């Protein structure tokens, strides 16, 4: 462009700005008549004038970054007291370190200038006190302080011995050390630590940057006591860029009491890093590192470097034991493990006595030196990675941003709700990016309780790299939205954005601009395009959006009823609000109201065309899920994760679905990633606990569940689940305690009611159990899922007491709910059929069992065929029974499948029972022994059947043993009430065995136990007739 043209363009531009919006187009056409290039230029300039950019930021923002570097150069050449500053050696959070000349003595020293905020009298006092304590340590592996002084402007500085050499972090950055050198340095550090620990002084910040290796190859520990003096730890340092938590011990990371063992842990980390060139616990996000410290076992040293000797491996292993009580208790132990004498404080080659220092008059001797580098996120050059990274390591590379609620400063109270709504819109627009992660509402909410000045530090401590904050302001044009993104590590702004609007609702549309600015600032590539329908919709229906955001908040707090009300209101205002439809349907499905959920999701699925891609996918996945098209749902959620790798919701759903389909490895892998994406989310720990629990990993499950309960102290579910974990381990009393706690928090909590009833029953409180279950099964206000569960458990309780009529009636009563929910339909039919069989009504029984088999998913589940087989056995329909047995075996898994046993043992059991009925006792014993052998210790029924066969064959001692086992056997699986019927029947069988053995007294005792159990049983049951006969047996005179 030449200048003449620019002035013309400029004039036209000014006129366009002055023109009313509706006249603009006209003006554009006339002024650029016949000059398409001019028109294009004008349009581009108009567009450019709308965007905010570099010129809208204060220049000071630019200056800060560019000038901060090298700022310290200006001290070089000046003097601090008698010290002439020659060059900068390093800079760290706690100050800058210079090489300086002590003009009085003509020697070189190192001077550390503490940051200005450490000049309060209290800080000085603490520094002096610590200095005195540390000064008593006179050790070649601990750096010494010559002097402490105060600069003209009141800043404290420390004067320390100057050793050439290099800090260990720089040495490691060039690659792993030789095994011998690593060992030597570790031992020297241990000696220094040993001396300090003897004097009761803990370093608290042992890391390579705090160890200097002198030109004489002598390791010297720097910064002794600094963490204590400043009261700041690596994570909470507010004075500068905080360091990495990589060297923190677990107890330090959790903020617990820290002792000598903590330093030894850090030494273990340093040794590991010296040997391998990499840290045992890594991640650029402090939260991820801490997670590793608390939960992970580092990769074996020998795997990374085979030539590492066993003693070094032992030393690292024992230093890195998570429990400080199990760790090395002293530096001496560490040295002993490495075959070193722990006593000598001196080591070969170190002329300790000739240690050159001269204390200036009145000097304090402090071991305080700052050689560390500013480089919290600068990892040393990593050694070649020997194997694939654990799942989820990619997460640490991605910036994490918290979108805080906007603050309404417009002076109009009715706009308050814009704050959370705008934040939600911005977060939604940011979330689909592959290049950043958005902190969950839970994390953001926790942050929003922080005082404003503390926001960034708190976010940083939570591992959040960036925060987006903003306000709604009054402006001459109406309103202005001001937003900015700050880096929490730098504690400074990285981008800001302002938008003016005449109407507040226009501000909602600006959410996309804010998100765009934030994405750019966080390094998302410009080519990553993201749909922006949400803000459009919100600005068209601001009131509906307000309710929607309210609903989301309630939903994430598990306040389902409030959430439901809010979503319903949103839909009353905007019936086409697809996301509100989706959320409502999804929530109803979770509440067990499947029919409503189905109708709602169908409506949502028909209205996805205006949704962003990610949301469309969620709606489709939820539709499949609610329709029980499980495989489709799994595929849909997998695709979401592929496109949007940081979506926690899709991952959680996938975990649940895969687990329900019997997958084990993949859900756990997903959870590992999830626990790093959303460690604050109690649901993650809940799922992890549940799955580990179902895999029998009870200890790990308890840990996860406890974490769940601690993150969600108000959650009844947490206690219920913990109760289940106790129950599985046979701790019934403890389990009952947890269930009661759950019911205290939420008296209507259905799961806990059922679970408590089960424990009551197992502990012999049958009446309480029955009462509780009956009330819940019949409570029309309770969730259908819980009612159904209660009905099944109640049916089992009743069956165990011979009350088969009542048992089938409760399931009949709940039939509409069971059908509507399509859960356990086949099971309900099968239980009812079995009860009819007990009641000797074979026709009804047959009809129900056939229906159960027909309703059962394909291939037909063994349990239904087995139930039908038992009926055929009772009716002596041998041909049909043979067919059933064949069918069971056809369904059997391949020979090498670990789950194969179920079909085999059911078939063997039925074959054995047939042989028994036909009087072929020997054959029966053979088959039933096989069934028991296949079963191990899971079900009583097989031992009971085997006992019957022994009895029939006259093998009475064997019959007695098998009968007792059936009675007393504690199943390995979670106690289930439907096995209790077999337990009662074991009493009856034992009575028969004792009778056959001539022990009439014992026979009567067992029979009475059975009669007591079946006191309210249906009339005329053959078992009861038999038991009554046996109960009246008197010992022969």
């Amino acid at each position: 462009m030449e200048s003449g043209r620019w002035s013309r363009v400029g004039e036209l531009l000014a006129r366009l700005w002055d023109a009313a919006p509706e006249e603009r187009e006209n003006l554009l056409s006339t002024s650029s008549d016949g000059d398409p290039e001019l028109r294009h230029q004008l349009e581009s300039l108009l567009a450019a004038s709308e965007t905010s950019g570099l010129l809208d930021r204060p220049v000071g923002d630019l200056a800060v970054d560019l000038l901060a570097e090298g700022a310290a150069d200006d001290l070089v050449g000046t003097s601090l007291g008698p010290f002439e500053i020659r060059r900068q050696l390093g800079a760290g959070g706690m100050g800058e370190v210079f090489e300086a000349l002590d003009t009085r003595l003509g020697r070189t020293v190192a001077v550390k200038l503490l940051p200005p905020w450490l000049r309060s009298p209290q800080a000085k006092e603490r520094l002096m006190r610590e200095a005195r304590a540390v000064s008593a340590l006179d050790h070649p592996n601990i750096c010494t302080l010559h002097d402490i002084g105060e600069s003209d402007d009141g800043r404290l500085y420390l004067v320390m011995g100057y050793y050439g050499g290099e800090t260990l972090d720089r040495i490691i950055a060039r690659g792993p050390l030789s095994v011998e050198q690593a060992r030597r340095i570790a031992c020297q550090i241990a000696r220094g630590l040993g001396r300090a620990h003897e004097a009761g002084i803990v370093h608290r910040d042992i890391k390579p940057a705090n160890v200097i290796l002198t030109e004489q190859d002598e390791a010297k520990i720097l910064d002794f006591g600094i963490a204590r003096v400043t009261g700041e730890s690596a994570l909470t340092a507010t004075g500068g860029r905080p360091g990495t938590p990589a060297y923190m011990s677990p107890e330090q990371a959790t903020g617990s009491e820290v002792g000598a063992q903590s330093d030894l842990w850090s030494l273990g980390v340093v040794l590991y890093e010296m040997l391998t060139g990499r840290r045992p616990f890594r991640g650029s996000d402090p939260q991820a590192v801490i997670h590793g410290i608390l939960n992970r076992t580092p990769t074996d040293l020998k795997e990374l470097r085979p030539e590492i000797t066993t003693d070094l491996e032992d030393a690292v292993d024992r230093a890195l034991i998570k429990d400080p009580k199990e760790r090395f208790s002293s530096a001496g132990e560490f040295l002993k493990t490495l075959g070193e004498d722990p006593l000598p404080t001196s080591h070969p080659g170190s002329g300790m006595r000739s240690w050159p220092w001269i204390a200036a008059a009145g000097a304090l001797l402090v071991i305080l030196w700052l050689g560390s580098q500013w480089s919290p996120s600068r990892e040393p050059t990593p050694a070649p990675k020997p194997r694939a990274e654990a799942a989820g390591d990619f997460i640490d590379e991605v910036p994490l941003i918290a979108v805080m609620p906007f603050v309404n400063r417009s002076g109009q109270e009715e706009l308050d709700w814009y704050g959370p709504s705008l934040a939600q819109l911005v977060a939604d627009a940011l979330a689909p990016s592959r290049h950043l992660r958005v902190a969950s509402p839970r994390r953001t909410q926790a942050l929003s309780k922080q005082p404003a000045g503390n926001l960034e530090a708190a976010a940083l401590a939570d591992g959040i790299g960036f925060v987006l904050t903003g306000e709604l302001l009054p402006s001459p044009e109406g309103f202005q939205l001001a937003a900015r993104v700050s880096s929490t590590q730098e504690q400074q702004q990285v981008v800001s954005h302002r938008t003016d609007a005449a109407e507040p609702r226009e501000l909602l549309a600006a959410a996309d601009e804010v998100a765009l600015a934030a994405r750019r600032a966080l390094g998302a590539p410009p080519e990553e395009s993201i749909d922006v329908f949400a803000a459009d919709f919100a600005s068209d229906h601001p009131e509906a959006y307000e309710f929607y955001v309210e609903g989301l908040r309630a939903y994430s707090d598990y306040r389902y009823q409030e959430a439901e009300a809010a979503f319903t209101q949103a839909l009353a205002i905007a019936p086409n609000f697809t996301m509100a439809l989706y959320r409502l349907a999804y929530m109803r499905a979770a509440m067990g109201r499947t029919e409503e959920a189905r109708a709602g999701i169908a409506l949502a699925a028909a209205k996805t065309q205006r949704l962003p891609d990610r949301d469309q996918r969620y709606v489709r996945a939820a539709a499949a899920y609610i329709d029980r098209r499980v495989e489709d749902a799994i595929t849909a959620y997998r695709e979401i994760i592929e496109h949007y790798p940081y979506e926690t919701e899709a991952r959680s759903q996938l975990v649940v679905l895969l687990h329900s389909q019997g997958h084990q490895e993949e859900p756990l892998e997903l959870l590992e990633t999830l626990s790093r994406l959303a460690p604050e989310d109690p649901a993650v720990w809940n799922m992890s606990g549940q799955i580990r629990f179902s895999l029998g990993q009870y200890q790990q499950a308890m840990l996860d569940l406890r974490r769940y309960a601690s993150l969600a102290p108000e959650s009844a579910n947490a206690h219920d689940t913990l109760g289940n974990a106790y129950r599985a381990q046979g701790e019934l009393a403890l389990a009952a305690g947890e269930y009661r706690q759950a019911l205290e928090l939420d008296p209507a909590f259905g799961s806990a009611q059922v679970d408590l009833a089960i424990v009551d029953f197992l502990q012999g409180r049958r009446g309480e159990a029955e009462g509780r279950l009956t009330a819940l099964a019949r409570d029309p206000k309770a969730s259908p899922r819980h009612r159904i569960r209660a009905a099944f458990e109640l049916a089992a309780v009743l069956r165990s007491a011979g009350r088969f009529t009542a048992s089938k009636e409760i399931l009949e009563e709940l039939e509409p709910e069971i059908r509507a929910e399509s859960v356990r339909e086949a099971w309900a039919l099968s239980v009812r059929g079995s009860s009819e069989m007990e009641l000797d009504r074979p026709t009804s029984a047959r009809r129900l069992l056939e229906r159960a088999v027909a309703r059962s998913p394909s291939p037909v589940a063994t349990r239904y065929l087995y139930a039908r087989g038992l009926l055929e056995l009772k009716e002596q329909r041998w041909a049909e029974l043979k067919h059933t047995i064949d069918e069971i075996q056809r369904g059997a898994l391949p020979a090498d499948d670990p789950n194969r046993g179920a079909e085999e043992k059911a078939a063997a059991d039925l074959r054995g029972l047939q042989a028994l009925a036909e009087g072929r006792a020997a054959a029966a014993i053979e088959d039933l022994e096989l069934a028991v052998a296949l079963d191990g210790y899971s079900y009583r029924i097989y031992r009971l059947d085997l006992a019957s066969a022994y009895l029939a064959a006259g093998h009475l001692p064997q019959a007695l043993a098998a009968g007792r086992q059936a009675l007393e056997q504690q199943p390995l699986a979670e106690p289930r009430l439907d096995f209790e019927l077999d337990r009662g029947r074991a009493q009856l069988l034992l009575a028969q065995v004792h009778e056959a053995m001539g022990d009439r007294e014992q026979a009567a005792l067992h029979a009475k136990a059975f009669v007591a159990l079946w006191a309210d049983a249906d009339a005329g049951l053959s078992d009861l007739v038999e038991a009554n006969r046996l109960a009246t047996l008197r010992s022969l005179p």
Partner: protein
Amino acid sequence: MKQRPKQEPGDGSPTRGEVTALLADLRRGRREAMDELLPLIYHDLRSLARRQLRGQRPGHTLNTTALAHEAFLKLADGGGEGWQNRTHFMAVAATAMRHILVDAARQRLAQKRGGGAFHVPLDEVQVRIDARALEVLDLDAALEKLTLLDPRQARVIELHFYGGMTFEEVAEVMEISTPTAKRDWRKARAFLHFTLARRSDAA
């Protein structure tokens, strides 16, 4: 850029008298006074900025206007009639600030090139500072371009953006009306944003 201050500070600190006299010259229209003032203000402003950055907790932005004012109080005679020199001083400071930033950006990128011999680990912060440096250089180049097209608009940008001067101050020192200053700013801003956007698209 037309004027380049010397990289090394002068032989001694300028005296207040010197600076005050140069400012008076400038007010009287002697353009060369600007060239003589610039290096003096440049060095003083830079060390003030650095001192402020050193003493601050990280995260504070740099208040460049306050810095320039501090430099003025230090370098010029702020009392009496000298106070009228303040606006002119600020105007020179604006140019100085532009130079300071451009030089820092160049230095930063040069260091990076020089440091290419050893592997520099990827660091978010470093990457962002590099991006800042490029932004500053891009803006400078665009501003150079605008100077050719419309020097007055370019000067308004310099004073308002780099110098943090209000439109009233800009108008006063450039001897134009405040609305003109605002209009110039708006046009120049559109031009620069347009140019910068095109540049980043091309990249």
